[in-house]
Every structure is written in C-alpha cells, then in structure tokens.
C-alpha cells in the first residue's frame, strides 16, 4: 500500500488542537482512498500502461534531445536534416560554454543569489507564519491575505522601481540586490507553506514547554522549530528554485558583475550568433543539478508543490 504522494507524516498529520482545513483534507496522507478508481481488468491495465509509456516518451523526449545535442559537435548541432543521436560524442560544447568569459562567474552568482534569497525568505517567513498560525489575530489574517495578493503582482511592474531603489542605495548589480528582488517572489509562498506546516503542530507541545519554564520564543526555537524542520526544508527548496530559475528581475537588475546564468543563456543568442551547441550545454549544466536534487527529495517537493498550489 502506498500513501498519497506527500511528505513525511509528521509534517502534515492532523493533530488534536488544529481542525483540518480544506488543505488538510486534500493533503492528509491517508491511505490511497480512490482505490475504487484503479482499473481492474488485465487488458485495460495493459492498454493504460502502453498509453503511459507513449506519454512519457513524448514528454521526456525534448529534454533528452537537449542533452543529446549538447554532446554533438557544433557543426552537427545545426545539421540539416537534424539527427537525434550525435555522430561523434564530444564534450566540445561544454568546454566552449564553460570557458566563455563570465559563464563560471554567472553560475557562482546564481548560487550566491539563490542562497541569500533562501536564507532571507526563511528568516522572515518562519516567525511570520508562526505568528499568524499560533495567535490567529486579526492583523495576522490581514497580513496573510496581503502576502497572497503579493503573489499576483507581475514582476515587470515592480522590477524597474526596485532596480532604481537598489542603485540609489548603492546596491546596483550585486547578488544582494537580486536576492532581495527574488525574495519578494518567494516570501509570500514561504509564508503560506510555513503556515500550513505550523498549523499541524499541536499547541499542547508549546504549552508543555512553557509550563516547564520556557519563554515563548524559547518554546518556538527549542520545541516547535525542530518539529517543523521537514517543512522548513521544503520551503527552503522552493525559495532556492524560485531564485535559481528566475529571469526577469535578473535581466533588469544585473549587469556585468552579478549576472546570473539564465541571463547569460539568453545573451548567448545575441552575442555569439546562434551558438546552439554551447547554449544547450550550458542549459544542461544549469538544469541537471536541480533535477537530481528534485529526484532525491521528490517526496518533500511534491508535498510542498501541492501545498503551494493550493494555498497561493
């Protein structure tokens, strides 16, 4: 028996003290409920598996083709008619792409920016989400609504004013400025995610801690935070990914010093003609670590994604 594709049970388990909300109902890691829907006839199942195989091939092929192309010689890359497999396998594109001025630096910039943004998101979101869920004050309700509305703001609308703000305080073209911009995107989502995780922590836990002489902050730090550490990990992954893949703010707010890889990939088009080989190689380098990370942490990520979707 498998459970729903959710995270560890402790993260989302319904507890006494917190009523299940709609989200809880969606994500509660019950046993597979819709079992009645499973196809039972053998021939039907075979057909469905065949259908799945076709869908998977169609779906997976584009990225596979990108990977294959990145191992072709630059000339082969633009062969007419195009071939699927490389004639000769070569690392030339990788050497070309990574050897270009600014490419390695951009990968470092992307990493720095994403790490700063992740830390900033967590430091701000964790206490805020706790304040909202634990005390349920009217201001908390207003605040979480406001955070949700923030998600609807198109980045292009705040990108330019944000960029000029940053340059007026001397932060233009720094990873910090870009990390702040990325945090405007990931903070609202982080607050919603963390609020859902805190919702599942029984209040008795902290009450017991306070009786034992912990301050409220002490109870949060020593008792509650360890319980939601899985949720914090999920939130961190999302904040990191949002920054790692973001393009518009990066385009508006970085020049030479702090350019991130997505911007460099886009610039390949104009600066070096259409050097498809190098572009595909760099795109692969940039995507593969994240895909591996995702596959390793998939259970957690699936839970976070569903929560993120449902809440904001």
């Amino acid at each position: 028996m498998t459970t729903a594709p959710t995270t560890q049970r402790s993260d989302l388990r319904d507890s006494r003290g917190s009523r299940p909300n709609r989200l809880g109902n969606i994500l509660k890691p019950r046993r597979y409920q819709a079992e009645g829907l499973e196809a039972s006839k053998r021939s039907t199942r075979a057909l469905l598996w065949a259908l799945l195989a076709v869908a998977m091939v169609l779906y997976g092929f584009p990225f596979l083709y990108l990977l294959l192309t990145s191992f072709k010689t630059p000339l082969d890359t633009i062969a007419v008619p195009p071939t699927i497999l490389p004639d000769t396998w070569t690392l030339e594109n990788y050497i070309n792409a990574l050897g270009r001025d600014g490419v390695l630096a951009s990968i470092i910039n992307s990493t720095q920016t994403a790490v700063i943004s992740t830390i900033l998101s967590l430091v701000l979101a964790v206490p805020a989400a706790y304040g909202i869920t634990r005390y349920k004050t009217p201001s908390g309700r207003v605040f979480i609504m406001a955070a949700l509305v923030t998600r609807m703001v198109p980045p292009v609308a705040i990108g330019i004013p944000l960029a000029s703000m940053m340059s007026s305080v001397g932060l233009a073209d720094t990873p910090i400025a870009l990390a702040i911009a990325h945090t405007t995107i990931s903070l609202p989502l982080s607050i919603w995610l963390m609020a859902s995780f805190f919702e599942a922590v029984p209040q008795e836990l902290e009450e017991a801690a306070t009786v034992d002489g912990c301050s409220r902050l002490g109870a949060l730090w020593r008792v509650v935070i360890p319980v939601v550490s899985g949720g914090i990990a999920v939130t961190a992954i999302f904040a990191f990914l949002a920054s790692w893949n973001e393009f518009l703010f990066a385009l508006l707010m970085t020049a030479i010093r702090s350019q991130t890889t997505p911007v460099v990939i886009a610039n390949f088009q104009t600066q070096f003609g259409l050097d498809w080989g190098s572009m595909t190689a760099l795109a692969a380098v940039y995507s593969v670590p994240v895909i591996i990370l995702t596959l390793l942490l998939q259970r957690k990520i699936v839970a976070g994604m569903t929560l993120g979707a449902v809440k904001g």
Partner: protein
Amino acid sequence: MRITDRRFALYLMAPAALFLAVFVAYPLFSLVADSFFEISPVLGGPREFVGLDNYVQAFTSQAFVGAGWRTLAYTLLVVTLEFALGLGMALLFTLLGRKSQTWRTVFLYPLMIAPIVAGLLWKFLMIDNFGLLGALLHQVGLLRDPNQIGWLSNPDIVLFSVAIPDIWLTTSFMCLVLFAGLQNIPGELIEAARLDGARAPAMLFKIILPLLRPVIAVALVVRGVDAARAFDSILIQTNGGPQSASETMSLLIYNTMIRFGEPGLASAMGTIYLIAMLGIAFVAVGTIWRPGKDS
C-alpha cells in the same frame, strides 16, 4: 514585563511585513506615481506631470490593446490545454494505482527546469531549417516540406508555438494538484457509483469532476495568474515577434520601458495590468481560498 500574545504575534510578523512594504508596496507606489509623469529615460532626467496622458496613450495604442487580447488568448490557451492534459495524466496515474509511482516522479522533472531553458529548447525544436519538429513531421509524412509550418515565423500561429514550452513545463504541476485531489475522493463513493452501474463517462462528469471542483478552481486560478505574466520563454523564442504577434503584456511593458525608453507610459501600462491582475486575484481569493477560515 510580560508582553501580550497579540503584541508578540505582531513582533513575529513585523520583519516580513516591513520587507514586503519596502520592497513590494513601495515600488508599486512609485510605479503608480510614475504613470502620471512624462519621464526622460536618462537616469535623473527631467520629469513633467502630464496627468492621465499616459493612460490615454496606452488605451489608444494598438500595441497595448493588442497585447491585452494576446495575453488573454495566451492565458486561456495555456491553461485549457494544460488542464486537459494534466487531468488526463492524473486520471491515468490514478487508474494505474500505486505501481505508477516511479513514473509520477519522472513526470515531475520539467517543473524544475528554468522557463528560459524550456523556451530555448523548444525554439531549437521548432526553428526553421534544422528544427527537429518539422523534420519529424516530414518524415512520418504529415508535412510535404520540413519548413512548411513556420512555427515561430508565421504571425498567425506563433502565439500557439510560444505557448508550447509553458504547457510542457507546467502540465506536470496541473497533474500533480489534480492527482492529489483524486486521492481524496472516498473509495466508497466510487464503489457505490460502480454498483449503481455508472459507466466511465458518467463517473467522470457526474462524480469525479464535481468532487474535484475546489481543487480544479484553485489550480486554474494559480496557473492563470502565472500564465498571464509569461515573459521568459516568449522573450527567448521570439522576443514578441514576428510583427508583435507574440507580444504579451509583460513583454510590451518591458520593451516600452527598456527599448523605447518611455518609463512614464510603461508605468501606466504596468498600473493597468496590475489592477486587472489584482481585480481577478481578489475575486478569486474571495470565492475560493477564504484564508484564515477553516474550510
């Protein structure tokens, strides 16, 4: 002195609230303020108050109205196809049951790919001459000539072509959310319907979809908002061309600001766009999420 719970909660929320006020609310405020000025693109250049001129100019400009309709069409196209494909996959996974788990994971990987990479990849697949898509369709005999369909060069179909990476990237998201929803349909209900002799279509339309309604609504709104902001993948594929045929709102505002150097006009467009998005958001929030209230 012991501080009250209420005050303690405020302290906890204050840093995040302050952050959003400074880095979201303030830039939005200056966006709206800028929209009433004619601004020189040079940093620190002159600004002249022009009232609603920028708004008049926006609404009378063909580019703006065109971009508005295109954004709407793009959003509807992306969300509809994604929903249909995502629901199909979610049902397939559900019908196959627990043995499909590994494949569900594999199905998720595009979610981790940067939109810019997806845009690049699909441009490479659809580009004239050496694009694989045309060549494959030619090989199986669907096209007379590999370049018969100018995916990215024909203004009539380009909006559809630039939507493909977006659909490819986020169908898995839709599938995931719908799959999670399907998990929670009580098995007894399905069993009962089956005993009553419900056939597959009736089961889908009369039982499953109505039960999934809240999940579907949320998924559609979330993806709708995201699709309406599409920028990365379109920029890298066509940069809005040919003949502005794929220029959506984000691209138009970006170009007005950066390429044509008209911050005032771009701000007015941004403000209108923002109000439209927020309007939709408020309606959606009010009717679907109801945060703070349990169920």
